[in-house]
């Protein structure tokens, strides 16, 4: 089963609240997570996103789509990166998410990717 595992946050908040050592460890941790996922045969895709302050949101104004600066949610609550993983069941996806949460100490959202109906 495929799951999307999502991480939130922004660059400014991290720079204000984290030390150089923590950032170094975080980079090592995230690099290792991708290595591990590939090793376990569960990696489908992963992506880090450019900082949310660089986002544009297209909204409808007077019936016309208009691009505006900034993300949809608050920057610090915006999507920062995600993995698509292919795992045996939900508990495995939650186990993976827990590993991330234990390190970043922030919430991680786990959503199942919808699929075709089963054959029988």
């Amino acid at each position: 089963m495929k799951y999307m595992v999502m991480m939130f946050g922004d660059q400014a908040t991290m720079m204000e609240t984290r030390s150089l050592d923590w950032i170094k460890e975080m980079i090592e941790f995230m690099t290792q997570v991708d290595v591990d996922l590939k090793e376990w045969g569960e990696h489908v895709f992963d992506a880090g996103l450019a900082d949310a302050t660089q986002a544009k949101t297209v909204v409808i104004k007077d019936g016309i789509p208009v691009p505006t600066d900034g993300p949809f949610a608050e920057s610090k609550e915006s999507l920062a990166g995600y993995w698509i993983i292919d795992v045996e069941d939900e508990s495995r996806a939650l186990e993976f998410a827990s590993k991330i949460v234990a390190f970043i100490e922030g919430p991680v959202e786990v959503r199942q990717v919808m699929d075709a109906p089963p054959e029988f």
Partner: protein
Amino acid sequence: MTSKTGIEDLLRELAPQVLGTLVRRYGQFDACEDAVQEASLAAGVQWTGGGVPANPRSWLVTVASRRLVDEWRSESARRRREATTAAMEVVPAPDQLPDRDDTLTLLFLCCHPALSVPSQLALTLRAVGGLTTGEIAKAFLVPEATMAQRISRAKQRIRDAGARFDLPPEQERAERLRVVLHVLYLVFNEGYAATAGPGVTRADLTTEAIRLTRLLHRLMPADGEVAGLLALMLLTDARRAARADEDGSLVPLAKQRRELWNLAQIDEGVSLVTETLGTTAIGPYQLQAAIAAIHDEAPTAETTDWPQILALYEVLERVSPGPVVTLNRAVAVAMVHGPRAGLAILGTLEDDDRMTHTHRLDAVRGHLLELAGDVDAARDAYRRAATRTASLPERRYLTLQAAGLEPAASPNLREE
């Protein structure tokens, strides 16, 4: 017995020649291109088991022609042909020109201005580079079906544009060559930019860009910019092994372990620059190659000949002005006349609209402020740059630079 790699190299060398022959004989660039791709795949299988035929080129022409005829026999293909032959007339009489190398014509066709840049890249790699759709898809990290569609739409565009299989007319040639060089430059960059990512190496694209540019240089030995681009690629790629450390982090030029640089490539690049400079019209690729050569020839970062680099950037700014050139000149000025002089030049870019969407101005500013000992301002500049970059390795590098400049580190502060 020819090895698998040997066969692949041979097939990729022959692919554009075979395609040229077919297009001259039958017209219909798009159908011929598919047929050559199929013939190459068949050859890859058959030659690996049964050995390479005595005349591999005519083997491929025969097999590809057969595919083409098979294709035409099918009803749907016939309808398509009736709709399109008129649009892609070709100067016939291929046999009067047996030794003519069509590779150059192909290169111009694949870099046709009617195509979007991603399409130019994909089509060039397939038709001239002889890569399979699967290989190209993998290199650009997109699904194979997406890449197949991109290539097929590119061929459709060429047909719609009424392009002919002929070299561009003399008066358009220089401008069209500029596009070809830009496409090759982008292929190189696509591979080079990715090599810093953890676990991701797309070194194949840099190798392929160098191979194609070398081919172009062989076809147009007198063109200084072709030689310049080849030299620039060789001199830049020579530093590949030193550009990232074991865990994939970016290592800036000044901190690279120079013993990891590829000396053979540096030698080749330097000779190309030396032979070319001054013998033909000067151009931006030659100048950038000359600058790269000065970096590559310095045994240590400290012994880099910055006054010479600055002089070259001043010429480059006259020949090919732009904010990125100014940015690089500012660094050279800082290295020759001190960081404050460099920062003054950055000030002139402040209001440049072309700089508003890039992190590079702040990244350079952070570096120069750090050199000037202004820790607080340097940290702010690095932070702004880290927030704006769209490259993960670069963001990590800039974040660490900013975090490493916490006020506690200020005892190291120095005045220039």
